């Protein structure tokens, strides 16, 4: 490492032997850097397991039509059902590995009229957690991962490591439902749980769109006069539903790195995310929580988690600083090299395990006993 006694905020500090005139101008007056083509190798800080995961993941997302393609918006339900099937099949192998590593019981049932998967560790819920419960709101851009498969991938490690009950919620989403359907579903479940649990013993966490939903729900519950949950986790997200991730440094992983999370064919996948929010009012903090400092300031203890190769990292770190300034007890965890939802999909890696262990411990420290 080379380092001088000077600060080089946001601008390349270089070792140069040429004079200013000879140096190629590669910083624009507005501060834009022109980056040469480069190869980004695996991080040397990764475990061999994570390196293997990442190598496979890169190949997987680079393939054409990497994910099952969502149908056109107006496609009939049968087509969307088919898409859901393919999606579940796509994630089935990952789920199988999660189940193998983290033994749990899963009960697929309904609560408050919504489909849920209730996840409990096989060795039993820890005594200190019998009066606590977590709700998980799955990723999927408000358009995919219907059913419980991907949600369970996210819930199971937390339930197992934390020895705590986690309820995965199959909330309503696009194309057949728009905002605020998902918030209503969470509210229904939450009210049902309030009959059994103290609010500050209930935690909610979500990944990607599920994290956005988590933040929306906080404002929603407050508007409905319901007591706030004890703590929330916002993973791989901002948590703004505004697709602002292009504007921060971590946006390089979406726009400039070929394919990243989305293949060429999934270009169109960005659009459906906006379907769910189409009728929502930009000025309504129940829909756009980031629009209100007043509402953000009421957040319970919050954990923001992302990865250095996740296009949401910049939003997450900015939101962390903002929450702290508003007096919220906010914590931040950034995984080295994790892509979007990396903590969930890098199954079997020490990095993912450590992240989940931290999530479990964090909730343990922040939920009421």
């Amino acid at each position: 490492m080379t380092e001088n006694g000077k600060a080089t905020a946001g601008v390349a500090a270089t070792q140069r032997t040429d004079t200013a005139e000879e140096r190629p101008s590669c910083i624009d007056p507005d501060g834009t850097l022109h980056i040469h083509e480069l190869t980004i190798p695996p991080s040397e800080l990764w475990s061999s397991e994570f390196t293997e995961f990442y190598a496979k993941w890169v190949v997987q997302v680079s393939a054409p039509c990497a994910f099952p393609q969502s149908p056109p918006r107006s496609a009939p339900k049968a087509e969307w059902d088919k898409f859901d099937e393919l999606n579940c099949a796509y994630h089935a192998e990952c789920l199988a590995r999660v189940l193998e590593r983290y033994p749990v019981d899963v009960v697929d049932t309904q609560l408050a009229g919504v489909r849920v998967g209730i996840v409990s560790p096989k060795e039993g819920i820890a005594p200190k957690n019998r009066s606590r419960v977590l709700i998980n709101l799955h990723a999927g851009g408000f358009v995919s991962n219907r059913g419980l498969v991907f949600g369970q991938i996210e819930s199971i490690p937390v339930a197992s490591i934390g020895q705590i009950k986690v309820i995965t919620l199959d909330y309503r989403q696009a194309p057949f439902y728009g905002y605020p359907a998902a918030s209503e579903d969470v509210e229904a479940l939450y009210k049902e749980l309030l009959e059994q649990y103290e609010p500050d013993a209930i935690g909610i966490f979500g990944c990607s769109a599920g994290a956005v939903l988590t933040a929306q729900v906080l404002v929603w519950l407050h508007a409905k006069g319901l007591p706030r949950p004890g703590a929330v986790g916002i993973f791989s997200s901002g948590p703004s539903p505004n697709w602002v991730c292009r504007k921060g440094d971590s946006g390089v992983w979406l726009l400039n790195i070929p394919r990243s999370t989305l293949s060429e064919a999934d270009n169109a996948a960005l659009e459906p995310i906006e379907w769910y929010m189409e009728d929502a009012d930009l000025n309504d903090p129940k829909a756009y929580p980031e629009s209100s400092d007043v509402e953000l300031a009421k957040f319970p203890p919050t954990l923001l988690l992302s990865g250095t190769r996740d296009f949401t990292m910049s939003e997450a770190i900015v939101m962390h600083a903002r929450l702290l300034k508003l007096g919220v007890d906010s914590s931040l965890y950034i995984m080295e090299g994790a892509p979007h939802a990396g903590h969930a999909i890098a199954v079997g890696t020490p990095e993912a395990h450590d992240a989940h262990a931290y999530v479990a411990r964090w909730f343990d420290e922040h939920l009421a006993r």
Partner: protein
Amino acid sequence: MTTKRRFPVESSSASPDSDNEGSIHVEAFDLALSGFLSAETRAILKRQSKEFEELQEACPGAYNAPASEVDVLSARRCHEEHFYPALIERQRARYEVTIEPKTIGGVATEIIAPVEGVAVANRRRLLINLHGGGFIYGGRWGGQTESIPIAALGKFKIVSVDYRKAPEHHFPAASEDVAAVYKSLLADYRPENIGIYGCSAGAFLTAQSVAWILKEELPVPGAIGMFCAGAFPSGGGDSEHLWAAINGSCSVTSSKSTKKFAYFIDKDLENPLAFPGLDPRIMVRFPDSLLIASTRDFLMSSVLATHRQLVSLGVKAELHVWEGLGHAFFVEPDLPESREVYDVIVRFFDEQLSGE
């Protein structure tokens, strides 16, 4: 962010952009200043860009990797004449402090304190600052830049240590100096009322000092801050790869950003007293830690690795990352984000040091 490239237009059956080992090939692209930065911040960054160019004119070679001891000494002189004075003047205009030299435990230090005196709550508390500078630069003046805002805003007394460094001295000279200062201060301050913090080399040294303090069987300080570096050597993390890209974007020949300092020799890189992250048995005994990084800091991965390890060992550690800014950005007091950093540091030590 402005980009020349949109999503790739064509996709073929095998991606030309990746190989089976997980490397990613990226075509040339533009990286604008982060969209999250305010107009005020951008203006200051542009000003700094110009200042840096002027500095390079005034001190040719002083901002290159030194190739010899002579280079280091002449660079120090140049930093002292052309870099620090204006910066420290800006800091002292905002943050009023007194600065007094003092020898503690046989080591040169400066005591930096708020002009109106330390806060009542801080009378029994003390911070020790370990300056950055790659273990070759930053003596005295670097320590001032890192202590002035904290002393003034936090109303803390800060002992900034002018530790021995390369090329004149080598590991573990700095660790010994910090331990000597610390041991001497223990006569007047309880360990739980002492905080140690540093940025860059100063962060590495903070971690090293804790390891050394443990080795000397002294009680650990109440809390520490590791900013812009951590307890792990930096090599090969994501931040370094991206930094190399940013670095390489403006050099004629690509410069390797991984170079060993003269302060360390090769085998020090495997010594847990130099890089305590290598030994969880040391790390598990670390006190409450504040970790700070930024997205364009080539050492961010070292900070993240340190945070991950500490929390997995059950040590209380909090992480803060600033968006779009580079290594040690907060020595510049004009940046609004610098003020955010100072506030975080002050709040952390205020909460963590017991003060009784």
